[in-house]
Protein backbone atom coordinates (compact mmCIF):
# COMPACT_ATOMS: atom_id res chain seq x y z
CA UNK A 1 0.00 0.00 0.00
CA UNK A 2 2.66 2.59 0.78
CA UNK A 3 4.15 2.34 -2.69
CA UNK A 4 0.85 2.41 -4.53
CA UNK A 5 -0.59 5.44 -2.75
CA UNK A 6 2.42 7.47 -3.80
CA UNK A 7 1.01 7.72 -7.29
CA UNK A 8 -2.13 9.68 -6.52
CA UNK A 9 -2.05 13.27 -7.66
CA UNK A 10 1.14 12.59 -9.56
CA UNK A 11 1.04 12.54 -13.38
CA UNK A 12 -1.72 10.18 -14.46
CA UNK A 13 -1.21 7.06 -16.52
CA UNK A 14 -1.31 7.81 -20.22
CA UNK A 15 -4.63 6.92 -21.72
CA UNK A 16 -4.45 5.80 -25.33
CA UNK A 17 -6.33 8.11 -27.69
CA UNK A 18 -6.26 11.09 -25.34
CA UNK A 19 -3.85 13.89 -26.29
CA UNK A 20 -1.14 14.63 -23.79
CA UNK A 21 0.68 17.63 -22.36
CA UNK A 22 -0.10 21.20 -23.39
CA UNK A 23 -2.73 20.24 -25.91
CA UNK A 24 -4.60 18.23 -23.29
CA UNK A 25 -4.56 21.18 -20.87
CA UNK A 26 -6.10 23.43 -23.50
CA UNK A 27 -8.70 20.81 -24.36
CA UNK A 28 -9.68 20.41 -20.69
CA UNK A 29 -9.91 24.18 -20.22
CA UNK A 30 -12.16 24.56 -23.27
CA UNK A 31 -14.34 21.72 -22.02
CA UNK A 32 -14.62 23.24 -18.53
CA UNK A 33 -15.57 26.66 -19.87
CA UNK A 34 -18.10 25.10 -22.24
CA UNK A 35 -19.67 23.19 -19.33
CA UNK A 36 -19.76 26.34 -17.19
CA UNK A 37 -21.44 28.30 -20.01
CA UNK A 38 -23.94 25.50 -20.43
CA UNK A 39 -24.62 25.53 -16.68
CA UNK A 40 -25.15 29.28 -16.63
CA UNK A 41 -27.99 28.89 -19.16
CA UNK A 42 -29.94 26.58 -16.82
CA UNK A 43 -33.08 27.77 -15.01
CA UNK A 44 -32.45 30.20 -12.16
CA UNK A 45 -32.86 27.67 -9.34
CA UNK A 46 -30.48 25.25 -11.09
CA UNK A 47 -27.86 27.99 -11.45
CA UNK A 48 -28.28 28.66 -7.75
CA UNK A 49 -27.87 24.96 -6.94
CA UNK A 50 -24.75 24.78 -9.08
CA UNK A 51 -23.35 27.79 -7.25
CA UNK A 52 -23.85 25.90 -3.99
CA UNK A 53 -22.14 22.89 -5.56
CA UNK A 54 -19.08 25.00 -6.42
CA UNK A 55 -18.93 26.50 -2.94
CA UNK A 56 -19.16 23.12 -1.21
CA UNK A 57 -16.68 21.65 -3.66
CA UNK A 58 -14.22 24.37 -2.67
CA UNK A 59 -14.81 23.67 1.02
CA UNK A 60 -14.28 19.95 0.45
CA UNK A 61 -11.15 20.73 -1.56
CA UNK A 62 -9.70 22.31 1.57
CA UNK A 63 -10.73 19.29 3.63
CA UNK A 64 -9.19 16.96 1.04
CA UNK A 65 -5.75 18.44 1.65
CA UNK A 66 -5.87 17.42 5.30
CA UNK A 67 -8.01 14.29 5.18
CA UNK A 68 -7.01 12.96 1.77
CA UNK A 69 -3.40 13.87 1.12
CA UNK A 70 -2.53 14.30 4.78
CA UNK A 71 -4.46 11.28 6.07
CA UNK A 72 -5.75 13.22 9.08
CA UNK A 73 -9.52 13.11 9.53
CA UNK A 74 -10.72 16.59 10.45
CA UNK A 75 -14.17 17.07 11.93
CA UNK A 76 -13.35 20.74 12.51
CA UNK A 77 -13.85 22.10 9.01
CA UNK A 78 -17.37 23.28 9.78
CA UNK A 79 -15.76 25.76 12.18
CA UNK A 80 -13.32 26.95 9.52
CA UNK A 81 -16.18 27.37 7.05
CA UNK A 82 -17.90 29.41 9.74
CA UNK A 83 -14.84 31.57 10.36
CA UNK A 84 -14.84 32.49 6.67
CA UNK A 85 -18.57 33.09 6.54
CA UNK A 86 -18.79 35.17 9.69
CA UNK A 87 -15.71 37.22 8.74
CA UNK A 88 -17.32 38.22 5.46
CA UNK A 89 -20.73 38.91 6.98
CA UNK A 90 -19.34 40.98 9.86
CA UNK A 91 -17.01 43.00 7.63
CA UNK A 92 -19.80 43.79 5.18
CA UNK A 93 -22.27 44.73 7.90
CA UNK A 94 -20.06 46.52 10.42
CA UNK A 95 -17.03 47.73 8.47
CA UNK A 96 -19.06 48.51 5.33
CA UNK A 97 -16.54 46.72 3.09
CA UNK A 98 -17.49 45.48 -0.36
CA UNK A 99 -18.12 41.72 -0.44
CA UNK A 100 -15.13 40.94 -2.68
CA UNK A 101 -12.64 42.79 -0.50
CA UNK A 102 -13.65 40.69 2.51
CA UNK A 103 -12.53 37.45 0.87
CA UNK A 104 -8.78 37.96 1.41
CA UNK A 105 -9.43 38.76 5.08
CA UNK A 106 -11.57 35.64 5.42
CA UNK A 107 -8.87 33.54 3.80
CA UNK A 108 -6.16 34.91 6.10
CA UNK A 109 -8.29 34.26 9.19
CA UNK A 110 -9.03 30.81 7.79
CA UNK A 111 -5.30 30.14 7.49
CA UNK A 112 -4.89 31.14 11.14
CA UNK A 113 -7.88 29.02 12.22
CA UNK A 114 -6.54 26.08 10.24
CA UNK A 115 -3.13 26.44 11.84
CA UNK A 116 -4.75 26.62 15.28
CA UNK A 117 -6.77 23.46 14.70
CA UNK A 118 -3.72 21.83 13.13
CA UNK A 119 -1.35 22.76 15.92
CA UNK A 120 -2.29 19.70 18.00
CA UNK A 121 -1.57 17.62 14.87
CA UNK A 122 2.11 18.13 15.52
CA UNK A 123 1.72 16.09 18.70
CA UNK A 124 -1.52 14.15 18.56
CA UNK A 125 -2.37 11.52 15.97
CA UNK A 126 -5.15 9.42 14.50
CA UNK A 127 -8.28 9.03 16.56
CA UNK A 128 -7.04 11.50 19.19
CA UNK A 129 -6.60 14.15 16.51
CA UNK A 130 -10.07 13.46 15.14
CA UNK A 131 -11.46 14.14 18.62
CA UNK A 132 -9.45 17.35 18.95
CA UNK A 133 -10.83 18.62 15.66
CA UNK A 134 -14.30 17.58 16.81
CA UNK A 135 -13.73 19.80 19.83
CA UNK A 136 -13.32 22.82 17.56
CA UNK A 137 -16.47 21.95 15.62
CA UNK A 138 -18.53 21.64 18.81
CA UNK A 139 -17.09 24.78 20.38
CA UNK A 140 -17.64 27.04 17.41
CA UNK A 141 -21.43 27.46 17.78
CA UNK A 142 -20.94 28.02 21.52
CA UNK A 143 -18.43 30.78 20.77
CA UNK A 144 -20.88 32.39 18.36
CA UNK A 145 -23.54 32.41 21.07
CA UNK A 146 -21.15 33.66 23.74
CA UNK A 147 -19.93 36.63 21.69
CA UNK A 148 -23.35 37.52 20.39
CA UNK A 149 -22.59 41.25 20.17
CA UNK A 150 -20.38 40.52 17.19
CA UNK A 151 -22.04 37.46 15.73
CA UNK A 152 -25.71 37.97 16.41
CA UNK A 153 -25.74 34.96 18.74
CA UNK A 154 -28.24 32.19 18.20
CA UNK A 155 -30.30 34.41 15.91
CA UNK A 156 -27.43 34.74 13.46
CA UNK A 157 -26.56 37.47 11.00
CA UNK A 158 -28.29 38.79 7.93
CA UNK A 159 -26.46 40.63 5.15
CA UNK A 160 -28.84 42.89 3.30
CA UNK A 161 -29.04 42.11 -0.38
CA UNK A 162 -28.27 45.69 -1.37
CA UNK A 163 -24.86 45.19 0.24
CA UNK A 164 -24.29 42.13 -1.92
CA UNK A 165 -24.79 43.67 -5.37
CA UNK A 166 -22.20 42.71 -8.01
CA UNK A 167 -19.43 45.30 -8.44
CA UNK A 168 -20.02 47.70 -11.39
CA UNK A 169 -16.91 46.56 -13.30
CA UNK A 170 -18.23 43.01 -13.49
CA UNK A 171 -20.93 44.03 -15.96
CA UNK A 172 -23.62 42.23 -13.95
CA UNK A 173 -26.64 44.26 -12.89
CA UNK A 174 -28.21 44.17 -9.47
CA UNK A 175 -30.82 41.70 -10.66
CA UNK A 176 -28.14 39.35 -11.95
CA UNK A 177 -26.62 38.59 -8.56
CA UNK A 178 -27.29 34.86 -9.05
CA UNK A 179 -25.22 34.70 -12.20
CA UNK A 180 -22.49 36.85 -10.67
CA UNK A 181 -22.23 34.45 -7.72
CA UNK A 182 -22.23 31.50 -10.13
CA UNK A 183 -19.22 32.81 -12.02
CA UNK A 184 -17.46 34.02 -8.88
CA UNK A 185 -17.82 30.62 -7.23
CA UNK A 186 -16.72 28.87 -10.41
CA UNK A 187 -13.63 31.08 -10.64
CA UNK A 188 -12.79 30.46 -6.99
CA UNK A 189 -13.20 26.73 -7.48
CA UNK A 190 -10.86 26.71 -10.47
CA UNK A 191 -8.33 28.74 -8.53
CA UNK A 192 -8.55 26.32 -5.62
CA UNK A 193 -8.23 23.39 -8.00
CA UNK A 194 -5.05 24.82 -9.54
CA UNK A 195 -3.62 25.59 -6.10
CA UNK A 196 -4.25 22.09 -4.77
CA UNK A 197 -2.93 20.49 -7.97
CA UNK A 198 0.32 22.41 -7.88
CA UNK A 199 0.72 21.88 -4.16
CA UNK A 200 0.18 18.14 -4.24
CA UNK A 201 2.49 17.57 -7.16
CA UNK A 202 5.26 19.64 -5.57
CA UNK A 203 8.07 18.29 -3.42
CA UNK A 204 6.17 19.39 -0.35
CA UNK A 205 3.11 17.47 -1.52
CA UNK A 206 5.20 14.37 -1.93
CA UNK A 207 6.60 14.83 1.58
CA UNK A 208 3.06 15.14 2.98
CA UNK A 209 1.91 11.95 1.33
CA UNK A 210 5.05 10.20 2.51
CA UNK A 211 4.19 11.28 6.06
CA UNK A 212 0.72 9.84 5.68
CA UNK A 213 1.90 6.52 4.32
CA UNK A 214 4.88 5.93 6.56
CA UNK A 215 5.69 8.60 9.07
CA UNK A 216 8.83 7.02 10.52
CA UNK A 217 10.38 6.50 7.11
CA UNK A 218 9.44 10.00 5.96
CA UNK A 219 10.92 11.63 9.05
CA UNK A 220 14.05 9.56 8.62
CA UNK A 221 14.32 11.02 5.10
CA UNK A 222 14.30 14.54 6.52
CA UNK A 223 10.62 15.49 6.36
CA UNK A 224 9.59 17.75 9.23
CA UNK A 225 6.36 16.13 10.39
CA UNK A 226 5.20 18.91 12.70
CA UNK A 227 5.90 21.80 10.33
CA UNK A 228 4.40 20.12 7.29
CA UNK A 229 1.24 19.03 9.10
CA UNK A 230 0.55 22.49 10.54
CA UNK A 231 1.26 24.10 7.15
CA UNK A 232 -1.13 21.68 5.50
CA UNK A 233 -3.89 22.50 8.00
CA UNK A 234 -3.24 26.23 7.44
CA UNK A 235 -3.54 26.06 3.65
CA UNK A 236 -6.56 23.82 3.99
CA UNK A 237 -8.10 26.35 6.36
CA UNK A 238 -7.53 29.19 3.90
CA UNK A 239 -9.32 27.32 1.11
CA UNK A 240 -12.28 26.24 3.23
CA UNK A 241 -12.63 29.72 4.75
CA UNK A 242 -12.68 31.14 1.22
CA UNK A 243 -15.61 28.84 0.55
CA UNK A 244 -17.19 30.11 3.77
CA UNK A 245 -16.87 33.72 2.57
CA UNK A 246 -18.60 32.83 -0.69
CA UNK A 247 -21.24 30.93 1.29
CA UNK A 248 -22.06 34.07 3.28
CA UNK A 249 -22.32 36.12 0.09
CA UNK A 250 -24.42 33.40 -1.53
CA UNK A 251 -26.93 32.92 1.29
CA UNK A 252 -26.89 36.39 2.82
CA UNK A 253 -27.85 34.84 6.17
CA UNK A 254 -25.85 32.87 8.71
CA UNK A 255 -26.79 31.14 11.91
CA UNK A 256 -24.79 28.88 14.21
CA UNK A 257 -27.20 25.96 14.24
CA UNK A 258 -28.05 25.86 10.55
CA UNK A 259 -24.70 25.80 8.83
CA UNK A 260 -21.80 25.42 11.19
CA UNK A 261 -22.39 22.41 13.41
CA UNK A 262 -20.68 19.05 13.41
CA UNK A 263 -23.23 17.84 10.92
CA UNK A 264 -21.76 20.19 8.33
CA UNK A 265 -18.37 18.62 8.91
CA UNK A 266 -19.93 15.20 8.44
CA UNK A 267 -21.54 16.40 5.22
CA UNK A 268 -18.20 17.64 3.91
CA UNK A 269 -16.51 14.36 4.86
CA UNK A 270 -19.28 12.32 3.24
CA UNK A 271 -18.94 14.39 0.08
CA UNK A 272 -15.20 13.84 0.06
CA UNK A 273 -15.52 10.09 0.58
CA UNK A 274 -18.15 9.75 -2.15
CA UNK A 275 -16.10 11.86 -4.54
CA UNK A 276 -12.80 10.20 -3.71
CA UNK A 277 -10.17 11.05 -1.13
CA UNK A 278 -6.79 12.26 -2.34
CA UNK A 279 -8.05 12.78 -5.89
CA UNK A 280 -8.22 16.14 -7.57
CA UNK A 281 -11.74 15.68 -8.96
CA UNK A 282 -13.17 14.03 -5.85
CA UNK A 283 -14.15 17.30 -4.12
CA UNK A 284 -16.08 18.49 -7.19
CA UNK A 285 -18.07 15.26 -7.30
CA UNK A 286 -18.45 15.58 -3.54
CA UNK A 287 -19.91 19.08 -3.97
CA UNK A 288 -22.62 17.64 -6.20
CA UNK A 289 -23.33 14.91 -3.65
CA UNK A 290 -23.60 17.33 -0.73
CA UNK A 291 -26.03 19.61 -2.56
CA UNK A 292 -28.14 17.11 -4.45
CA UNK A 293 -28.54 14.27 -1.90
CA UNK A 294 -30.50 16.46 0.56
CA UNK A 295 -32.43 18.03 -2.30
CA UNK A 296 -33.51 14.67 -3.67
CA UNK A 297 -34.29 13.09 -0.29
CA UNK A 298 -36.40 16.06 0.79
CA UNK A 299 -38.40 15.71 -2.41
CA UNK A 300 -38.86 11.99 -1.87
CA UNK A 301 -39.53 11.74 1.86
CA UNK A 302 -40.66 15.24 2.68
CA UNK A 303 -38.85 15.09 6.00
CA UNK A 304 -35.62 14.83 7.94
CA UNK A 305 -34.49 11.57 6.38
CA UNK A 306 -31.34 12.95 4.83
CA UNK A 307 -29.21 12.13 7.86
CA UNK A 308 -30.15 8.50 7.34
CA UNK A 309 -29.46 8.71 3.62
CA UNK A 310 -26.08 10.35 4.23
CA UNK A 311 -25.17 7.67 6.76
CA UNK A 312 -26.19 4.80 4.53
CA UNK A 313 -24.39 6.23 1.49
CA UNK A 314 -21.25 6.96 3.53
CA UNK A 315 -21.17 3.41 4.90
CA UNK A 316 -21.87 1.91 1.48
CA UNK A 317 -19.10 3.91 -0.20
CA UNK A 318 -16.58 3.02 2.51
CA UNK A 319 -17.53 -0.64 2.10
CA UNK A 320 -17.84 -0.96 -1.64
CA UNK A 321 -15.91 1.87 -3.28
CA UNK A 322 -13.10 2.85 -0.90
CA UNK A 323 -11.47 5.20 -3.38
CA UNK A 324 -14.70 7.02 -4.20
CA UNK A 325 -16.13 7.84 -7.61
CA UNK A 326 -13.09 9.76 -8.83
CA UNK A 327 -10.74 7.02 -7.62
CA UNK A 328 -12.87 4.45 -9.37
CA UNK A 329 -12.81 6.48 -12.60
CA UNK A 330 -9.05 6.94 -12.33
CA UNK A 331 -8.66 3.20 -11.94
CA UNK A 332 -10.79 2.39 -14.97
CA UNK A 333 -8.21 2.81 -17.75
CA UNK A 334 -5.72 0.79 -15.76
CA UNK A 335 -8.26 -1.94 -15.02
CA UNK A 336 -9.15 -2.11 -18.70
CA UNK A 337 -5.54 -2.32 -19.79
CA UNK A 338 -4.91 -5.04 -17.22
CA UNK A 339 -7.76 -6.97 -18.75
CA UNK A 340 -6.12 -6.61 -22.11
CA UNK A 341 -2.67 -7.71 -20.94
CA UNK A 342 -3.81 -10.48 -18.68
CA UNK A 343 -0.92 -11.97 -16.80
CA UNK A 344 1.13 -8.81 -16.35
CA UNK A 345 1.79 -8.15 -12.71
CA UNK A 346 -0.56 -5.62 -11.24
CA UNK A 347 -0.76 -4.07 -7.84
CA UNK A 348 -4.41 -3.18 -7.21
CA UNK A 349 -4.62 0.55 -6.80
CA UNK A 350 -6.13 1.67 -3.53
CA UNK A 351 -6.41 5.10 -2.03
CA UNK A 352 -7.29 3.92 1.42
CA UNK A 353 -4.70 6.06 3.14
CA UNK A 354 -7.35 8.74 3.40
Amino acid at each position, binding site marked *: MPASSMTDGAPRTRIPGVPSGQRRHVAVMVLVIALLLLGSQAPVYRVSQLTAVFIFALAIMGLNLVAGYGGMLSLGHSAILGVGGYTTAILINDARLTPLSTIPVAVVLGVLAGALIGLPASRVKG*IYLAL*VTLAFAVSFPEFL*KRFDGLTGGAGGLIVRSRDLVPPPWSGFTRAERGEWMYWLAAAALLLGFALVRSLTSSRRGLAIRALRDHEVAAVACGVSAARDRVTLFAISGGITAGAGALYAMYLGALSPESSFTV*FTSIQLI*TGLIIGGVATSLGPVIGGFAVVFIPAVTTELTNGQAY*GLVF*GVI*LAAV*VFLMPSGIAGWLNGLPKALSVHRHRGTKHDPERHDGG
Partner: protein
Amino acid sequence: MTLLVERLADGLTNGFVYALMALALVVVFRASSTVNFAQAEMALFTTYLAWWMTTKGASIWLALIAACIVGFIIGAVTERTLIRPMEKRGEMPTLLMLVALFTALNSIDGLIWGLDYHSMDGLFPGGIDDYISVAGARLYFEAIGVWVAAIVLLAVVFAAINKTRLGLRMRAAADNPTSAALSGINVGRIYTIGWGGAAVLGSIAGILIAPISAQQLSLATMFPVLIYGSAAAIIGGLNSLGGAVIGGLSLGLAESLLTGYVDLIGPQMHQTTALAVMVIVLLFRPTGLFGSRLEERV
Protein backbone atom coordinates in the same frame (compact mmCIF):
# COMPACT_ATOMS: atom_id res chain seq x y z
CA MET B 1 -21.88 27.69 50.79
CA THR B 2 -25.35 26.59 49.72
CA LEU B 3 -24.50 27.44 46.14
CA LEU B 4 -21.21 25.60 46.36
CA VAL B 5 -22.86 22.42 47.64
CA GLU B 6 -25.48 22.61 44.90
CA ARG B 7 -22.83 23.08 42.25
CA LEU B 8 -20.76 20.21 43.61
CA ALA B 9 -23.85 17.98 43.64
CA ASP B 10 -24.72 18.96 40.06
CA GLY B 11 -21.15 18.31 38.98
CA LEU B 12 -21.15 14.93 40.68
CA THR B 13 -24.43 13.88 39.03
CA ASN B 14 -23.20 14.82 35.58
CA GLY B 15 -19.77 13.43 36.36
CA PHE B 16 -21.16 9.96 37.11
CA VAL B 17 -23.05 9.90 33.82
CA TYR B 18 -19.95 11.09 31.94
CA ALA B 19 -17.97 8.38 33.71
CA LEU B 20 -20.39 5.70 32.48
CA MET B 21 -20.18 6.99 28.93
CA ALA B 22 -16.40 7.27 29.15
CA LEU B 23 -16.23 3.72 30.47
CA ALA B 24 -18.28 2.50 27.52
CA LEU B 25 -15.92 4.28 25.12
CA VAL B 26 -12.88 2.78 26.84
CA VAL B 27 -14.31 -0.77 26.68
CA VAL B 28 -14.83 -0.29 22.94
CA PHE B 29 -11.41 1.27 22.47
CA ARG B 30 -9.71 -1.63 24.20
CA ALA B 31 -11.44 -4.03 21.82
CA SER B 32 -11.24 -2.22 18.50
CA SER B 33 -8.82 0.70 18.94
CA THR B 34 -11.45 3.19 17.91
CA VAL B 35 -13.66 5.75 19.58
CA ASN B 36 -17.29 4.86 19.09
CA PHE B 37 -18.73 8.11 17.78
CA ALA B 38 -22.11 6.42 17.65
CA GLN B 39 -22.05 5.36 21.33
CA ALA B 40 -24.32 8.19 22.43
CA GLU B 41 -26.68 7.75 19.49
CA MET B 42 -27.05 4.04 20.28
CA ALA B 43 -27.94 5.11 23.81
CA LEU B 44 -30.37 7.72 22.50
CA PHE B 45 -32.17 5.07 20.48
CA THR B 46 -32.59 2.77 23.47
CA THR B 47 -33.61 5.69 25.69
CA TYR B 48 -36.33 6.63 23.23
CA LEU B 49 -37.39 3.00 23.21
CA ALA B 50 -37.64 2.97 27.01
CA TRP B 51 -39.60 6.22 27.02
CA TRP B 52 -41.95 4.89 24.37
CA MET B 53 -42.55 1.76 26.47
CA THR B 54 -43.40 3.85 29.52
CA THR B 55 -45.94 5.83 27.49
CA LYS B 56 -47.55 2.48 26.63
CA GLY B 57 -47.92 1.71 30.31
CA ALA B 58 -44.83 -0.40 30.95
CA SER B 59 -42.94 0.22 34.18
CA ILE B 60 -39.68 2.15 33.85
CA TRP B 61 -37.72 -0.79 35.24
CA LEU B 62 -39.11 -3.13 32.61
CA ALA B 63 -38.28 -0.48 30.00
CA LEU B 64 -34.75 -0.29 31.40
CA ILE B 65 -34.26 -4.03 30.94
CA ALA B 66 -35.64 -3.89 27.39
CA ALA B 67 -33.36 -0.96 26.58
CA CYS B 68 -30.34 -2.88 27.88
CA ILE B 69 -31.18 -5.94 25.79
CA VAL B 70 -31.76 -3.92 22.63
CA GLY B 71 -28.61 -1.90 23.36
CA PHE B 72 -26.55 -5.08 23.66
CA ILE B 73 -27.88 -6.30 20.33
CA ILE B 74 -27.16 -2.98 18.58
CA GLY B 75 -23.62 -2.87 19.95
CA ALA B 76 -22.86 -6.48 19.10
CA VAL B 77 -24.34 -6.29 15.62
CA THR B 78 -22.44 -3.06 14.91
CA GLU B 79 -19.16 -4.69 15.86
CA ARG B 80 -19.79 -7.80 13.83
CA THR B 81 -21.16 -6.18 10.66
CA LEU B 82 -19.65 -2.70 10.42
CA ILE B 83 -16.45 -2.68 12.44
CA ARG B 84 -14.87 -6.11 12.05
CA PRO B 85 -14.70 -5.89 8.24
CA MET B 86 -12.83 -2.59 8.60
CA GLU B 87 -10.27 -4.04 11.00
CA LYS B 88 -7.53 -4.48 8.42
CA ARG B 89 -8.27 -1.24 6.58
CA GLY B 90 -7.11 0.98 9.37
CA GLU B 91 -8.31 3.76 11.59
CA MET B 92 -10.02 6.09 9.13
CA PRO B 93 -12.51 3.69 7.48
CA THR B 94 -13.59 2.44 10.93
CA LEU B 95 -14.11 5.99 12.11
CA LEU B 96 -16.10 6.81 8.97
CA MET B 97 -18.36 3.80 9.59
CA LEU B 98 -19.11 5.12 13.07
CA VAL B 99 -19.72 8.64 11.77
CA ALA B 100 -22.17 7.11 9.29
CA LEU B 101 -23.91 5.19 12.07
CA PHE B 102 -24.01 8.37 14.14
CA THR B 103 -25.98 10.39 11.57
CA ALA B 104 -28.11 7.44 10.50
CA LEU B 105 -29.23 6.55 14.05
CA ASN B 106 -30.05 10.15 14.95
CA SER B 107 -32.08 10.48 11.79
CA ILE B 108 -33.90 7.19 12.48
CA ASP B 109 -34.85 8.42 15.96
CA GLY B 110 -36.24 11.56 14.38
CA LEU B 111 -38.21 9.59 11.80
CA ILE B 112 -39.72 7.23 14.39
CA TRP B 113 -40.27 9.49 17.37
CA GLY B 114 -40.38 12.98 15.85
CA LEU B 115 -38.61 16.21 16.68
CA ASP B 116 -40.53 17.07 19.88
CA TYR B 117 -39.08 17.27 23.36
CA HIS B 118 -40.47 14.65 25.73
CA SER B 119 -40.30 14.67 29.49
CA MET B 120 -39.38 11.27 30.78
CA ASP B 121 -39.96 9.77 34.20
CA GLY B 122 -36.80 8.71 35.95
CA LEU B 123 -36.01 5.54 37.85
CA PHE B 124 -36.16 7.47 41.11
CA PRO B 125 -38.78 9.77 42.65
CA GLY B 126 -38.43 13.15 40.95
CA GLY B 127 -41.05 15.23 42.69
CA ILE B 128 -40.46 18.82 43.76
CA ASP B 129 -40.41 17.79 47.45
CA ASP B 130 -38.23 14.72 47.11
CA TYR B 131 -35.04 16.14 48.55
CA ILE B 132 -32.89 16.30 51.65
CA SER B 133 -31.23 19.48 52.84
CA VAL B 134 -27.48 19.64 53.28
CA ALA B 135 -26.06 22.99 54.42
CA GLY B 136 -29.15 24.67 53.05
CA ALA B 137 -28.73 23.08 49.64
CA ARG B 138 -31.37 20.76 48.25
CA LEU B 139 -30.10 17.37 47.19
CA TYR B 140 -32.85 15.80 45.13
CA PHE B 141 -33.45 12.07 45.31
CA GLU B 142 -33.17 11.75 41.56
CA ALA B 143 -29.62 13.08 41.73
CA ILE B 144 -28.69 10.84 44.65
CA GLY B 145 -30.29 7.94 42.78
CA VAL B 146 -27.98 8.61 39.83
CA TRP B 147 -24.96 8.54 42.13
CA VAL B 148 -25.99 5.27 43.74
CA ALA B 149 -26.92 3.63 40.45
CA ALA B 150 -23.63 4.71 38.86
CA ILE B 151 -21.55 3.51 41.81
CA VAL B 152 -23.27 0.11 41.79
CA LEU B 153 -22.86 -0.17 38.02
CA LEU B 154 -19.19 0.80 38.14
CA ALA B 155 -18.59 -1.76 40.89
CA VAL B 156 -20.28 -4.46 38.81
CA VAL B 157 -18.26 -3.56 35.70
CA PHE B 158 -14.93 -3.53 37.54
CA ALA B 159 -15.74 -6.81 39.30
CA ALA B 160 -16.76 -8.38 35.99
CA ILE B 161 -13.56 -7.30 34.29
CA ASN B 162 -11.20 -8.11 37.15
CA LYS B 163 -12.80 -11.15 38.81
CA THR B 164 -14.58 -13.24 36.20
CA ARG B 165 -13.31 -15.60 33.49
CA LEU B 166 -14.97 -13.47 30.82
CA GLY B 167 -13.21 -10.41 32.20
CA LEU B 168 -9.89 -12.22 32.15
CA ARG B 169 -10.46 -13.12 28.50
CA MET B 170 -11.39 -9.53 27.74
CA ARG B 171 -8.21 -8.24 29.30
CA ALA B 172 -6.15 -10.82 27.48
CA ALA B 173 -7.79 -10.03 24.13
CA ALA B 174 -7.25 -6.31 24.67
CA ASP B 175 -3.62 -6.58 25.75
CA ASN B 176 -2.44 -9.02 23.14
CA PRO B 177 -4.96 -10.40 20.66
CA THR B 178 -2.54 -12.82 19.05
CA SER B 179 -1.44 -14.52 22.26
CA ALA B 180 -5.03 -14.56 23.46
CA ALA B 181 -6.14 -16.29 20.28
CA LEU B 182 -3.28 -18.78 20.54
CA SER B 183 -4.31 -19.71 24.05
CA GLY B 184 -7.77 -20.61 22.84
CA ILE B 185 -9.75 -17.42 23.35
CA ASN B 186 -12.26 -16.56 20.64
CA VAL B 187 -11.07 -12.97 20.34
CA GLY B 188 -13.73 -11.97 17.84
CA ARG B 189 -16.54 -13.10 20.15
CA ILE B 190 -14.92 -11.28 23.07
CA TYR B 191 -14.88 -8.05 21.03
CA THR B 192 -18.54 -8.51 20.09
CA ILE B 193 -19.45 -8.99 23.76
CA GLY B 194 -17.37 -5.93 24.67
CA TRP B 195 -19.26 -3.75 22.19
CA GLY B 196 -22.56 -5.12 23.44
CA GLY B 197 -21.60 -4.50 27.04
CA ALA B 198 -20.49 -0.97 26.25
CA ALA B 199 -23.84 -0.28 24.60
CA VAL B 200 -25.61 -1.56 27.74
CA LEU B 201 -23.61 0.92 29.82
CA GLY B 202 -24.64 3.64 27.37
CA SER B 203 -28.30 2.62 27.54
CA ILE B 204 -28.30 2.91 31.33
CA ALA B 205 -26.49 6.26 31.15
CA GLY B 206 -29.15 7.49 28.72
CA ILE B 207 -32.03 6.51 31.00
CA LEU B 208 -30.25 8.12 33.96
CA ILE B 209 -29.56 11.44 32.21
CA ALA B 210 -32.70 11.95 30.08
CA PRO B 211 -35.07 12.73 33.00
CA ILE B 212 -32.71 15.36 34.44
CA SER B 213 -31.26 16.73 31.20
CA ALA B 214 -31.92 20.33 30.24
CA GLN B 215 -32.76 19.03 26.76
CA GLN B 216 -35.24 16.52 28.26
CA LEU B 217 -35.54 13.66 25.80
CA SER B 218 -34.90 14.97 22.31
CA LEU B 219 -32.60 14.34 19.40
CA ALA B 220 -29.99 16.57 21.07
CA THR B 221 -30.04 14.89 24.48
CA MET B 222 -27.14 12.51 24.12
CA PHE B 223 -24.67 14.32 21.86
CA PRO B 224 -23.29 16.49 24.71
CA VAL B 225 -22.90 13.32 26.78
CA LEU B 226 -20.75 11.89 24.01
CA ILE B 227 -18.63 15.04 23.96
CA TYR B 228 -18.12 14.98 27.74
CA GLY B 229 -17.70 11.21 27.76
CA SER B 230 -15.04 11.25 25.06
CA ALA B 231 -13.30 14.20 26.70
CA ALA B 232 -13.32 12.28 29.98
CA ALA B 233 -12.04 9.11 28.31
CA ILE B 234 -9.27 11.05 26.58
CA ILE B 235 -8.29 12.87 29.75
CA GLY B 236 -8.11 9.60 31.63
CA GLY B 237 -6.39 7.77 28.78
CA LEU B 238 -8.41 5.87 26.21
CA ASN B 239 -7.32 2.43 27.38
CA SER B 240 -7.59 3.02 31.12
CA LEU B 241 -10.84 1.93 32.81
CA GLY B 242 -10.00 3.70 36.06
CA GLY B 243 -8.90 6.77 34.11
CA ALA B 244 -12.33 6.99 32.48
CA VAL B 245 -14.07 7.14 35.86
CA ILE B 246 -11.65 9.68 37.29
CA GLY B 247 -11.84 11.68 34.05
CA GLY B 248 -15.64 11.65 34.07
CA LEU B 249 -16.03 12.72 37.68
CA SER B 250 -13.39 15.44 37.54
CA LEU B 251 -14.81 16.76 34.28
CA GLY B 252 -18.31 16.93 35.74
CA LEU B 253 -17.07 18.81 38.80
CA ALA B 254 -14.78 21.10 36.80
CA GLU B 255 -17.56 21.94 34.36
CA SER B 256 -19.97 22.83 37.13
CA LEU B 257 -17.47 24.93 39.08
CA LEU B 258 -15.80 26.69 36.12
CA THR B 259 -19.00 27.66 34.36
CA GLY B 260 -20.48 28.65 37.70
CA TYR B 261 -17.67 30.82 39.00
CA VAL B 262 -15.71 32.09 35.97
CA ASP B 263 -17.67 34.88 34.33
CA LEU B 264 -15.79 34.87 31.03
CA ILE B 265 -16.91 31.29 30.38
CA GLY B 266 -20.52 31.84 31.39
CA PRO B 267 -23.41 29.47 30.89
CA GLN B 268 -23.07 29.13 27.09
CA MET B 269 -19.63 27.57 27.03
CA HIS B 270 -20.09 24.25 28.86
CA GLN B 271 -18.84 21.98 26.12
CA THR B 272 -16.07 24.32 25.12
CA THR B 273 -14.77 24.24 28.69
CA ALA B 274 -14.68 20.45 28.78
CA LEU B 275 -13.06 20.26 25.39
CA ALA B 276 -10.46 22.89 26.21
CA VAL B 277 -9.43 20.81 29.21
CA MET B 278 -9.20 17.78 26.91
CA VAL B 279 -7.08 19.55 24.30
CA ILE B 280 -4.71 20.90 26.95
CA VAL B 281 -4.26 17.46 28.51
CA LEU B 282 -3.61 15.97 25.08
CA LEU B 283 -0.99 18.57 24.24
CA PHE B 284 1.01 17.63 27.31
CA ARG B 285 0.22 13.93 27.45
CA PRO B 286 -0.78 12.71 23.97
CA THR B 287 -2.33 9.51 25.33
CA GLY B 288 -4.08 10.98 28.36
CA LEU B 289 -3.24 10.99 32.05
CA PHE B 290 -3.39 7.25 32.71
CA GLY B 291 -3.14 5.85 29.21
CA SER B 292 -0.20 3.73 28.17
CA ARG B 293 2.10 5.13 25.53
CA LEU B 294 1.74 4.10 21.94
CA GLU B 295 4.80 2.43 20.58
CA GLU B 296 5.62 2.13 16.94
CA ARG B 297 7.95 -0.53 15.65
CA VAL B 298 9.88 0.13 12.49
